[in-house]
């Protein structure tokens, strides 16, 4: 009963259209934010379907309207639909009971963009590190200069989070933002 109450309560809050947040990266195939917040019933089934548990449920720090909605946390792992482990089966969207996550072609998905902070980057501080480019599943999203430094190309990056997940700098030199995201069309 309590669980149902929570779900219902959060449905009420979600009638308020939330502002887009740079730090809230939605799973692949998410519809536009205003619709997403209405259509998502906060059931957590996408989180359970995710093989790497990259999808987590947002807390209050992402805004009251987004509580318990799914978000990508690259610190746990990259999006496996974009990196390969889901093997072209979009498990989160297939599991979504309401269509808040749409089954879309992999080539259409862009969750956001990885942002590099050069001051924290090991390569820009004279270390032998190009882990981000090693982890990147795309051939041209991170290129390497002749003096062994990574350069990020925002338009090619699909925001899978593989580089953010693996960055060995402390604190991490990379963050995943929803900037430039492509949402699924709805209705």
């Amino acid at each position, binding site marked *: 009963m309590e669980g149902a109450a929570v779900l219902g309560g959060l449905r*009420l809050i979600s009638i308020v259209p939330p502002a887009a947040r740079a730090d809230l990266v939605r799973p692949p195939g998410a519809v536009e934010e205003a619709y997403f917040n209405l259509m998502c019933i906060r059931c957590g089934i996408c989180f359970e379907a995710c093989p790497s548990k990259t999808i987590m449920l947002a807390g209050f720090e992402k805004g009251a309207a987004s509580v318990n909605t799914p978000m990508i946390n690259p610190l*746990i792992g990259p999006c496996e639909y974009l990196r390969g482990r889901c093997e072209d089966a979009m498990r989160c969207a297939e599991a979504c009971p309401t269509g808040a996550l*749409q089954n879309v072609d992999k080539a259409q998905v862009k969750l956001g963009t990885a942002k590099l902070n050069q001051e924290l980057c090991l390569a820009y501080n004279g270390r032998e590190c190009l*882990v981000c480019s090693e982890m990147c599943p795309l051939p041209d999203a991170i290129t390497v200069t*002749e003096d062994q430094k990574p350069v990020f190309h925002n338009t090619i990056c699909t925001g899978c989070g593989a580089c953010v997940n*693996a960055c060995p*700098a402390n604190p991490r030199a990379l963050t995943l933002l929803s900037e430039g995201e492509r949402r699924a069309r709805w209705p």
Partner: protein
Amino acid sequence: MQMHEPQKVGRRSYLKYGGVGILAAGIAGAAHLLQKPEMPTGHSAQLTNVPSSGTKPLSTETHTSPQRKTTLITEGGKSLVSVVKGGSSTDIEAMVRRAVESIGGIQTIVSAGQAVVVKPPVFASDKNCAPDVRVVLAVVKMVQEAGGIPVVAESSGSGDTAFNLAKVGVTDAAEKVGAAVRDLQTEREVNIPVPNGLALHEVKTYPTILNRDALISVPRLKRHSSATVTISLKNMMGTIPKREMGRFHSVNLSQCIADLNTVIRPDLTVVDATYAMTRTGPTGGDMIEMDAIIASEDPVAADRIAAQKLQELEESIGLSPSRLFKAADVKHINAAAELGVGTNNPADMQIIEKLLS
């Protein structure tokens, strides 16, 4: 983009959740706090980097590194390195057998009943970054024929190790001949000291690696973005946890690779150079046929010769000069030679080149 029809929960139950909720909206926030999802256990540890030095391991977790035989198969004090070309033959297993026999045979390393770890690099689920399955299989079979108990073990740098091993076909191939396949990352981590290390003082590894009787490194010849090349010495980074790999990059990658090889040193290296990855790596490089298997008991010598072959290959295919490297300048190979892991001087090696047919 295609539309996705709601399936599991229909419109009716969707409204039902909402309806029930309206009655109880008031307690939503409080209950949510109680319901906050738990993160996977590895998560908090992943967030904090291990300091490069100064961490004292718990004494119960510290293991002394096992004493390994250090005698090399040498001829007149020289490290033996065999390079077997297939020629018109495409029998990769025969090439591996010939390469190992040329340097003295598997029985000099493996005796009956020994636990032999076979270590292929399976960095990701990409087939090109792992060695040819037939090379791994040939080594596993040779270990079995010598009476050893082969265990194919790996700790992937990218993604889930068990998934990667299955995806590149290593799991199927090894299990077909009755060899165990182990995802090291499912094991308990153990700390071992690195007494001769210059950048590392201790390193975490896994019980399978620690309790081995022999270790056979089966790398593919590849270029590497951070380490210039990744052959046998760099392959040993697949015997440690992911967080340790990250630490290596933040300390001094080349020196850490060399230091690691002083405690986890392969007894035999079989380099798959049938196809080599050129231009960049460990994934995404261009695969060029080289048609060779390189074997040695000296991992530094194997790396030095394999790197030399890769350098020559890249020069011959007309790679842009800014991408080229010099085998003699690869930092981790030279650092490992400094620490006495093996020799990087071609004058101290005897290179046996053979053509299968």
